[in-house]
């Protein structure tokens, strides 16, 4: 327990523990800032439609009959013409891009609404389309957090070898298995917390953005619970990625090896698998990590009659979690064994 406290203290005392997540948070702020500047509180540039708009005609006639003085002299035909883009540039059908907490990219909704142009309220059709739905953005950010965990994990042990302090530590606690497992546990907990905080921060930023540039529609307690679950699952996977990085850095005795190995795998794994081992796809690290984070399923490729490949269900998120855990556990066992036997010269 004393060693665990020491390692936790060391984790939180390291500059990289503050700097790397700090840079990550700044990038999140930057991303949200870009989304803010690219969206608008006003309706965006209107899209024109080349035919009369039924809603426009209906609402304008209704407004005339209700005594709108600006429409009093218009005949039905003139109203139809005014509701046609080609004849009346003032007639607008607009599309509103919504930053949505709960809607995904393919969602859109049309509704009759009025927009004011040159002081005249013109009814028309508003198309509301969700952009950058939060529920698809959060897992993407969580995957980036995994890379951050690898950097933190690799450097947590790599720095020890660089400074030679692992030797110093063993003069105080010679049980090497305990030492490496404590490093995994303490750093894993720390990395999970860092990852969780970053995801909460991102959620807050996106919530703020959606409230001023989109819609919070549907963000009920069930939605919040779902977000919490995604973050919790991400934290668990983050801890496992940290452990994986600790194991690789222990074996290689440096930080770079861990970062290069995991990042390299992240970049080339899909190519390698597609070329030489399609059967391995359901067991691939990042595929399973994403399935755990998003609560989704992992597919495998099978051949059907005629020789075509089709993707079918392989396993769910719990099995995916077990596979990610194995990815972390097996290198950790190997690293613990090697570290236990290693001469520190």
């Amino acid at each position: 327990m004393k060693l665990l406290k020491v390692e936790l203290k060391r984790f939180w005392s390291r500059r990289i523990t503050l700097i790397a997540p700090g840079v990550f948070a700044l990038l999140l702020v930057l991303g949200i800032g870009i989304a803010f500047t690219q969206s608008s509180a006003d309706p965006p540039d209107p899209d024109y439609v080349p035919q009369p708009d039924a809603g426009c005609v209906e609402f304008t006639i209704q407004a005339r009959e209700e005594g709108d003085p600006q429409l009093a002299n218009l005949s039905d035909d003139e109203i139809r013409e005014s509701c046609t883009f080609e004849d009346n540039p003032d007639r607008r059908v607009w599309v509103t891009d919504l930053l949505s907490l709960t809607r995904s990219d393919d969602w859109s909704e049309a509704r009759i609404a009025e927009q004011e142009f040159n002081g005249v309220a013109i009814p028309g059709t508003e198309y509301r389309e969700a952009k950058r739905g939060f529920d698809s953005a959060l897992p993407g950010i969580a995957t980036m957090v995994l890379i951050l965990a690898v950097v933190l994990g690799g450097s947590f042990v790599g720095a020890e070898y660089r400074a030679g302090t692992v030797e110093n530590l063993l003069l105080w606690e010679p049980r090497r298995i305990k030492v490496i497992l404590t490093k995994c546990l303490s750093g894993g907990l720390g990395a999970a917390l860092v990852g969780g905080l970053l995801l909460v921060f991102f959620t807050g930023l996106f919530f703020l953005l959606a409230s001023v540039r989109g819609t919070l529609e549907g963000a009920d307690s069930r939605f919040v619970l779902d977000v919490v679950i995604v973050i919790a699952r991400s934290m668990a996977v983050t801890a496992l990625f940290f452990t994986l990085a600790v194991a690789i850095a222990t074996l290689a005795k440096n930080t770079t090896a861990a970062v290069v190995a995991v990042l390299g795998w992240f970049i080339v794994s899909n190519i390698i698998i597609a070329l030489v081992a399609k059967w391995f796809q359901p067991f691939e690290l990042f595929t399973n990590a994403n399935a755990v984070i998003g609560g989704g399923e992992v597919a495998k490729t099978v051949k059907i009659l005629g020789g075509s490949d089709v993707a079918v269900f392989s396993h769910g998120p719990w099995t995916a979690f077990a596979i990610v855990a194995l990815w972390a556990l097996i290198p950790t066992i190997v690293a613990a064994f090697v570290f236990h036997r290693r001469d520190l010269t």
Partner: protein
Amino acid sequence: MQQPVIDVRGLRKDFRNGVAAIDGLDIQIEAGGRVHGFLGPNGAGKTTTIRCLLGLIRPSAGDVKLFGVDVASNLPSIIGRIGALVETPKFFPNFSGRKNLQMLADVVGVRSVAIDEALDTVGLSDRSGDKFGTYSLGMKQRLAIAATLLKDPELIILDEPANGLDPAGIVEIRQLIRSLGSSGRTVFVSSHQLGEVQQTCDEVMIISKGRLIRQGPVSEMVSLGASNKQIVTVRDPAQAIRILNDAGFNVQPVPEPETVHVEIPAARADEITKALAAHQVFLSGMRPAEASLESVFLELTEGQGEL
């Protein structure tokens, strides 16, 4: 009979490149407030031996026991009784000296006051808040020594503790090591600075090529090289060497001007005068060569590596 604090028998360490760094080393050190010097030329196996003592390296063969406990299987039970510094000081460069010590102290629950005392002992209290990376080599060395004191150990193992220290620092460390020995602790110190070892240690072990070649009290070791060499000053050393060689003396030319070294006990030094005077060569001075641990060390390890 009292249990040896350090008991090494038949220690052997072969590295992967086939080099035997230690080759059947035996060391026994009894408990008690004594300072034991551990000497050997570069590559003799001193640091490898110390690493084996501390469980950092697994011996290829032999037994290593500290306080009667087998290091390979049961080091954790006695590690709290041992303070050690191995080669260069190793701490986190971005943490302060105090924080580095605090991290180690927390591993075994050493009280904070012990950190203050250790820093005070090595004269680092004023700079304890500075980052380790900003320390001079001497300060780093002193911090490492402070770390060895934190556990209030019964056995202190120091590998080249005076490395990088200025003359004043060396004197401080010498006094510190002496005081540690006087306080009842067993101190095992390897060093290249033979003058320091001579002044600091009670006993000394000399190893070469991974084997113990001599062990004993410092005074006894020094006396080994004390008696048989006379330093003779003559105007023409070449002629003197020829005469003395012809007379059957063992003569060594030396680079100093007008000087030759003659192997003969002090009691028979008059034979040199007689031999030279018979050839009308008169010496202008003669004195016995001063005995030192360095001369004994060089003699014992002659041709086996540099210091």
